[in-house]
């Protein structure tokens, strides 16, 4: 039976990457529920804007990796995208029962299972689209249980302006400059760092700590590396399979 890989995580908060994508097709209701039924602190996912301005959950800019038909996400309507049958993670067979979720589907599942949403804003969003994201989460009364993450600092700075001051934000990064660290600190934005980069730049940790930044790292599936990250004192580990 497919199961997660356990390790001695101590106080580290584990985040299921794209849902429990080591077991179920990534970023689907199946993957979110699989994570929901385990000890994860949070469930990570990715949101895109469709051509008709709706919010859909998928990692890539196109559907080719998860469906038999390759559609541009930003170039397709939500209806077109939701009509696609996604492939099973194990045998690659098209399945009737897994489709691309909407943002609201994801929030609903996280809320039902009491998990923190770790929501990646995939591309550079316009302010109004970010307001749409916030609106959907507020509609479910779940904003306090969301960590917004993004590679685009602009998204996070706009979210900082548009949400209550205690909203949690994390900047996705690899190598990072002292200047960026300062700006993150000044704007109460934490770190979500590529974990091999952190292991090879361990000098970052005292800098993060000096600024009071929490540290998440992506995406570690190796238990021995996870233990190294634990020894470094990271706060979160995002993983496809480690629990």
């Amino acid at each position, binding site marked *: 039976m497919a199961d997660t890989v356990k390790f001695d995580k101590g*106080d580290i*908060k584990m985040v299921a990457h794209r849902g429990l994508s080591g077991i179920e097709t990534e970023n689907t209701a199946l993957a979110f529920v699989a994570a929901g*039924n385990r*000890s994860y602190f949070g469930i990570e996912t990715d949101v895109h804007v469709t051509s008709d301005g709706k919010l859909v959950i998928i990692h890539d800019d196109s559907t080719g990796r998860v469906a038999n038909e390759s559609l541009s996400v930003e170039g397709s309507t939500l209806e077109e995208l939701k009509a696609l049958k996604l492939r099973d993670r194990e045998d690659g067979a098209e399945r009737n029962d897994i489709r691309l979720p909407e943002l609201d589907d994801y929030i609903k599942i996280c809320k039902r299972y*009491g998990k923190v949403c770790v929501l990646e804003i995939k591309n550079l969003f316009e302010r109004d689209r970010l307001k749409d994201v916030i609106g959907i989460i507020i509609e479910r009364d779940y904003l306090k249980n*969301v960590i917004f993450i993004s590679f685009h600092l602009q998204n996070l*700075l706009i979210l900082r302006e548009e949400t209550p001051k*205690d909203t949690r934000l994390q900047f996705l990064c690899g190598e990072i400059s002292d200047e960026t660290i300062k700006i993150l600190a000044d704007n109460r934005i934490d770190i979500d760092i590529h974990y091999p980069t952190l292991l090879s730049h361990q000098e970052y940790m005292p800098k993060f700590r000096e600024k009071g930044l929490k540290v998440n790292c992506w995406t570690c599936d190796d238990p021995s590396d996870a233990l190294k990250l634990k020894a470094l004192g990271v706060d979160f580990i995002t993983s496809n399979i480690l629990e």
Partner: protein
Amino acid sequence: MSGTIDANLNEMPADIYAGGDGNPESPENENDTAAVSGETISGDEALKFAESLEREATENARERLSEQEAIAEALVFASGEPVKIDSIAIAINSDKKEAYKVMDGLVDRYRRRAGGIILRKIDKSYLFCTRPELTENLRPFFERSTGSGLTRAAMETLAVICYNQPVTRAGIEYVRGINSDGVLIRLIEKGLVEEAGRSDAPGRPILYVTTPKFLQALGVESIKDLPKVEKVIIREPKADQPDAPAGENKAEDTKTGDGATSEDNGGSAE
């Protein structure tokens, strides 16, 4: 709470950063994140900084190779000799038009990189080469292989073929003013010249052209890239003189060097 479907949302943390499995015991101080030191950068100033990061990221993304570019690059590198566009198209699972687009992009990347290696288009093939400007730096290490290995007669014959191709043997001899059988054979053996059908002239003589290897040796993409010279008009042999014997024709308006060598008459070119 985790692992149950009917989790009570009232159990969710006041501060989601506290606790380890979505069910924290106590909230942390909200000021623990991002302790500020010195002058604070926020608002428009922070957004400007974010925009500069965005531009930098865009530039970096442009530098990343696509999967097709990576495959094509690996194929040409591993081959060590010119790889035809047909093979590249098969490798990247596309048509030739798309393959040319991918390869031209790669050529441009290597050019802009200004490193020691360039990707060169030779006719309809691609090959990795060292940058020509570095030849003198490399010469001491590759002394033996940097010479052309061609005699004056061979160079002269190559030049005639190059600027008049496709050309018959008689045409070559007309320009050079001397029998060129031997030197032509040596050039074919070296892969610098090849046959390219037959002329419609009487006797249907064989036509000769330069090869992609010749272009490669000269470091040009096509014959059009060579320096321009005054066109030499070659008179085709008369009907009663099919593929006319050499030695009787004289070159006109053409610098032919200082005469015949043993190679011209079939001797060694080395």
